[in-house]
């Protein structure tokens, strides 16, 4: 295990000029602290500035403003080839004219190592990523998954201070993606290398990271552990992007210490609330699996509605229910084994007040 390094972004902004002379703000005041050995993911929709942020850290783009600190030191004047950051590219970017061995040895040879050391480290690294035996192949003779392992090994071999991943798994099929992502996670934990990972796949982000950074339009929407981001999204955008969510218009009263009494369609409940919430109009986030259809008559709170569709998935039954002109998605567990509702049935539905979250209505624009 090598000594780990910390990375800090302070108000980093990047403005591109397009060929037509317009400007694009790809990164907009991004601040972020990555602790030693931490695995952090940048998650967001296409075009939100993830790659740009990563490339600024790697040194391939120069921030328009802001600072990037490695172990507390500004690296603005460190050229990209002196930053010691291993980068794993989406397109793999393997050297097509070199063998697998030579690809992985490339960075080591630049460090004036003895041939024996190079061979030893390449062998170790190849074993680490389960590539042993493929030393003499050319990249074109490898499968996509193998190519990605070579790319990973090549970045790992130089024992980088920080590992940067740019959607490394997006060219692979779903099954391989899942397998490789747990391998990456295990490797990173074993080696303790500080890592920043870019993806637009929320499942990937959640399963890999210590913390997730949700980005939107060049800005950071929220930073937090996967569970925190899922349970207590800072904005409607985050709630929507990570998993599914219903949003009920409510009025908040008595906001205090992460709790609020909200009035939701004539019914009053006490629910967890965002710290920035104030009295007044608010949004109540209800995840589909936190809502259910009432099997009994006396539950509170409860809302009436009509079943619009019912899909038997197996682990749950997915209903859409029209309730006060709003379509509510419900993933109901009880129906799997008990009563199945049909389209057109009048139903009552409810949610667990401890598992919903009240958001400022303003965050709706997010």
């Amino acid at each position: 295990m090598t000594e780990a390094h910390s990375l800090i972004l302070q108000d980093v902004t990047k403005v591109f000029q397009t060929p037509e002379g317009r400007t694009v703000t790809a990164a907009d005041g991004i601040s972020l602290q990555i602790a030693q050995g931490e695995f952090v993911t940048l998650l967001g929709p296409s075009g939100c500035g993830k790659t740009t942020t990563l490339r600024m850290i790697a040194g391939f783009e120069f921030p328009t403003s802001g600072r990037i600190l490695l172990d507390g030191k500004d690296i603005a004047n460190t050229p990209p080839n002196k930053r010691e950051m291993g980068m794993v590219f989406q397109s793999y970017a393997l050297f097509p004219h070199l063998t697998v061995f030579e690809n992985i040895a490339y960075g080591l040879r630049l460090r004036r190592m003895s041939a024996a050391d190079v061979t030893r480290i390449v062998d170790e690294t190849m074993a680490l990523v389960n590539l042993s035996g493929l030393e003499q192949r050319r990249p074109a003779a490898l499968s996509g998954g193998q190519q990605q392992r070579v790319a990973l090994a090549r970045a790992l071999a130089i024992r980088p201070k920080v590992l940067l991943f740019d959607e490394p798994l997006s060219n692979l099929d779903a099954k391989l993606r899942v397998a490789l992502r747990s391998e990456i996670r295990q490797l990173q934990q074993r080696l303790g290398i500080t890592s920043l990972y870019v993806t637009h796949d929320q499942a990937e982000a959640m399963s890999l990271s210590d913390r997730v950074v949700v980005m939107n339009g060049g800005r950071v929407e929220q930073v937090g552990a996967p569970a925190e981001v899922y349970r207590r999204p800072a904005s409607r955008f985050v709630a929507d992007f990570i998993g599914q969510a219903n949003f009920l218009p409510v009025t908040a009263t008595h906001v205090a210490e992460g709790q609020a009494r909200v009035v939701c369609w004539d019914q009053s409940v006490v629910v967890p609330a965002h710290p920035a919430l104030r009295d007044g109009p608010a949004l109540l986030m209800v995840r589909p699996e936190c809502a259910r259809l009432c099997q009994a008559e006396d539950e509170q709170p409860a809302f009436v509605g009509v079943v619009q569709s019912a899909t038997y998935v197996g682990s749950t039954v997915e209903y859409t229910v029209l309730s006060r002109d709003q379509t509510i998605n419900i993933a109901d567990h009880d129906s799997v084994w008990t009563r199945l509702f049909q389209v057109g049935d009048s139903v009552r539905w409810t949610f667990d007040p401890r598992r919903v979250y009240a958001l400022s209505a303003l965050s709706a624009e997010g």
Partner: protein
Amino acid sequence: MYLRAAPLIQRGCAPSLYLSTLSPMRLSRPLAPTIGWRRVWREYRALARDPLYLIALVAAALFVLAAILYPLIATLGQAASSEGARVLGDVLRRPVYHRIILNTLVMGLLVAGVGTGVGFLLAFVQVRVAAPAWLKRFIHLTALVPVVSPPFAVAVATIVLFGRSGLITYGVFGARTDIYGLPGLTIVMTLSFFTVAYLSLSGLLRGLDPAMDEAATNLGASRWHQFRTVTLPMLLPGLGSSFLLLFVEAVADLGNPLVLGGNFTVLATRLYLAIVGEYDLTSGSVLSVVLLIPSVLLYFLQWRLATRASVVTITGKPTGRVLLITDKRAVIPLVGAATAIALFIVLIYGTLLVGAFVMSLGVNNTFTLKNFEFVLLGYGAEAMIDTSFMSAIATPLAGVLGMVIAFLVVRGRFLGRSALDLGTMLGIAVPGTIFGIGYLLAFNNPTTLGGVTLIPKLTGGAAVLGGALAIVMVYVIRSTPAGLRAGVAALQQIDPAIEEASVSLGADQALTFRKVTLPLIRPAFFSGLIYAFARSMTTVSAILFLTTPETRIMTQQILNETEAGRFGNAFAYVVVLIAIVLVVIGLLSLLIGLSTGAEREAVQTP
């Protein structure tokens, strides 16, 4: 320090993108588009941080300025003098000049039309028609021969075969034909130049996605209908570009009209006469400009067309396989015509080969080695050695320049990038004769600035190195464009992330270029070298004015021997010249290797 040069290899396309990385600006204030000298200054200051980059850029810029633009400007300047204006008046008024211009146009159009047709026929047979593989291979190889032979070699053989005492026309049919003039020129120039059309059109035909044909067939189109409505329209830009390129080559050619023109005067021969016969540089310059302007315009028009052609045809991965035409009614005439053309080429070059080994072909057919004695051991040896030596110097220079300029053009982020590209391409867009005159005008006296000699006397008597330097320069400017285009094409296919990967692993730009970029563009570099050598060895028009008694050039000697009627010597020269080119190609491929095994893979990297 390095950092600001680092994004030079970043992804992206416009020079302005790079700039925005340098200026810290708040986003709340919309950025004023920073176009103007401030931006330019920042770009170049950023470049200066990587000395190697700067050296490459300065070298490339100096090359374009001194070796290409300066002679052209000298020519334009001479033509624009008051004396030049008088000559121009003459050219515009006098019917004899009208005749010459008309001749040039007609010849250009005929050669362009016939040459494109022949090129297309051979390409189509090669790619789309069912024929035995050996026959296709044979046709392909014969189609390549004109590239490695001096352009007017065909003319000489044609005179022997079809002239007044031609082996075939008189010998077989007993007819006294006159092949001097337009018909002979058209045939001979077509054969000399059609190869470029053949190569580019077969490339385009291969790039056509067969799925399109399948779609047309699927919709019920017959093969012929599909050819007319799908294949041909898709190839139109390519055909247009070939046509224009051949036109430009034809009107620029000097060797063939000199040998075979007879009374049929074209601009190039008139120009030659003005310089060599009348020592009139002013008339030469004026005629140059008359030839230059349409040539350059048409050249760049064809370049645009060619770019469009490849955009149209090469879209993503071709799917499916081409269904070859097997219908006998189409196969027999097409393959028959292609074979006939190939056989005609064999006949021509066979004549050259046989002619080199006999006393006087058709008159005295006894076997002799005296022609070769003359070329290899006698008077011609010097020309052979000089030419090969100068070509051998020009070849690596042109090869490296081509790759370096390609790198600057594709990956560079600085204003003037396209100017560098265009400037280099002028080296081939401008007819060679004009460079000959330009060099005489520009370099016949030392170029000085404030009493300091910048460039010594390069041409004429008492020139530096007997004028060899000027000739090597001309070789280089004529061959760099091909390497440049090959390099640009190769670089555009390399994912910039591959270079970034190298940098992120710790290599600086110079090392990345050497260890990653260069190996990947090696095939382009190699083809640039081959082209440069073949081109230098076979160049005629550009160097005819530049040879001095101290530096003899083979192509010029061939011309002299031809004009003196000593065909045997001319043939021996041609054979030796082709042999040298082939041997050097062989040596180069041994030395550098035809492929790295990676270039196709580089394309496949997602």
